[in-house]
């Protein structure tokens, strides 16, 4: 029955915008015969759709929120499948002078110099990570400060705003690569801080707890989760290139 063989997934925009899913999912459908549809939204909304049982499986990147989610009994079987990383970007002339600094120093410098910084401010996985970084740097999370601009928009829009305003921002590498390509390889914003372990961006697959969502297709979701962790899928992820650059690093256990 075709009906039962279809699966609905909610995921974050980054997996969709980078083209990863369009590359990966046909393989999954071919191997398992399961038809997978996905809706790409903010992490918060994706989790909410799961909580309301409107989807069957989640692919998200906000580890602390995911853990809370499971603790509340909405999700199950959190399985880490891959990661990429975040970077801090800013104008090439680096007015605040953060290039090469570690992440906490960079944030402190930005605060002290009141350099314009763009925050997504949308409670997305990226935004959650950014808030964590401020906390780690021991800085009270800015809100109404003039130099701290909350865009409330997606990553790319935020980068564009940063470019218009000559500001800094934190982005996932995938979106940055896309941004670079739209500027023909000569983007005004450059990577200034990268490589810190804390900047890792972990993606996980979550199934929904059948106790909360008895109608969700738990078994198919588990199949998807298994498949994502399978050697075959992991290899595919490893080989995925965006504009010639490697983007995701598989790390399923």
């Amino acid at each position, binding site marked *: 029955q075709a009906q039962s063989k279809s699966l609905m997934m909610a995921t974050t925009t980054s997996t969709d*915008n980078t083209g990863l899913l369009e590359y990966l999912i046909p393989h999954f459908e071919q191997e398992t015969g399961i038809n997978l549809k*996905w*809706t790409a939204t903010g992490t918060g909304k994706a989790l909410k759709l799961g909580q309301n*049982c409107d989807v069957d499986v989640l692919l998200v990147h906000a580890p602390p929120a995911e853990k809370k989610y499971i603790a509340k009994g909405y999700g199950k079987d959190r399985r880490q499948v891959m990661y990429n990383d975040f970077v801090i970007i800013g104008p090439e002339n680096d007015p605040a002078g953060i290039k090469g600094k570690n992440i906490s120093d960079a944030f402190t410098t930005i605060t002290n110099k009141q350099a314009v910084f763009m925050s997504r401010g949308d409670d997305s996985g990226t935004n959650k990570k950014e808030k964590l970084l401020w906390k780690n740097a021991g800085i009270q999370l800015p809100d109404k400060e003039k130099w701290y601009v909350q865009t409330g928009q997606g990553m*790319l829009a935020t980068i564009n705003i940063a470019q218009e305003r000559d500001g800094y921002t934190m982005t996932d590498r995938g979106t940055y690569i*896309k941004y670079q390509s*739209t500027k023909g390889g000569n983007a005004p914003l450059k990577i200034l801080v990268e490589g810190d372990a804390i900047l890792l961006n972990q993606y996980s697959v979550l199934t929904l707890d059948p106790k909360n969502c008895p109608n969700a297709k738990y078994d198919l979701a588990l199949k998807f989760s298994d498949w994502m962790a399978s050697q075959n899928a992991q290899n595919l992820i490893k080989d995925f290139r965006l504009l010639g650059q490697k983007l995701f690093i598989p790390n399923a256990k």
Partner: protein
Amino acid sequence: MDFIVAGFIKAIELLIGGDSSTWTAVFATLKVSTCSMLLSIGTGLPCGFLLGYFDFKGKKHLRTILDTMLALPTVFIGLTVYAFISRQGPLGELGLLFTLTGIAIGQTILAFPIVTAITASTIENIDRDLKLTLVTLGAGKRHIVATCLWEVRYGILAAAVTAYGRVLTEVGISMMVGGNIKYHTRTITTAIALETNKGLFADGIALGLVLITIAFIVNLSLSFLRKQ
């Protein structure tokens, strides 16, 4: 600026090249907007007629409420419809979430006040003598409605065309209720939002032009209804 020019070229490529994802989005858009327009005209015209034709107590208040409904944000409508048709909602059984039908329901709610309000104010403008003439020629209820609407057909057309523009361009409902699922519930507007989000402004412009082309063709084919 250059992305606008690039968008023009790309629009032509999309349409001529027969890009399959564009065309499925075009069809989704047409299906959903046709459906919601039929529903909203079917309900809005009679309501607008009643509101414009008769004088009754509380009419002014009803008009104020209707005018307020013109300012229902699409995301709000989207959320409300979602609340009903989400699997845990009262209508969850019907499986309308992430379907074109779901979107059409939301868009009907969006278009209904527009059709109703403009129809009502057009009907309000009709000659007192028309009413008397129809009654004294023996017209029953249904004939009065039909004839009055026909007398002000250009106004009704304006109502329909305005509502159509609204439905065709809305994003919030399609996104929330439809989920922007490629090859399924992706409409031109959600596709534009997606491309723009990706930073592919030229693609956004191109899809926008595709949508405008659709609107142009529809309006062109309606223009025979216009005053000669």
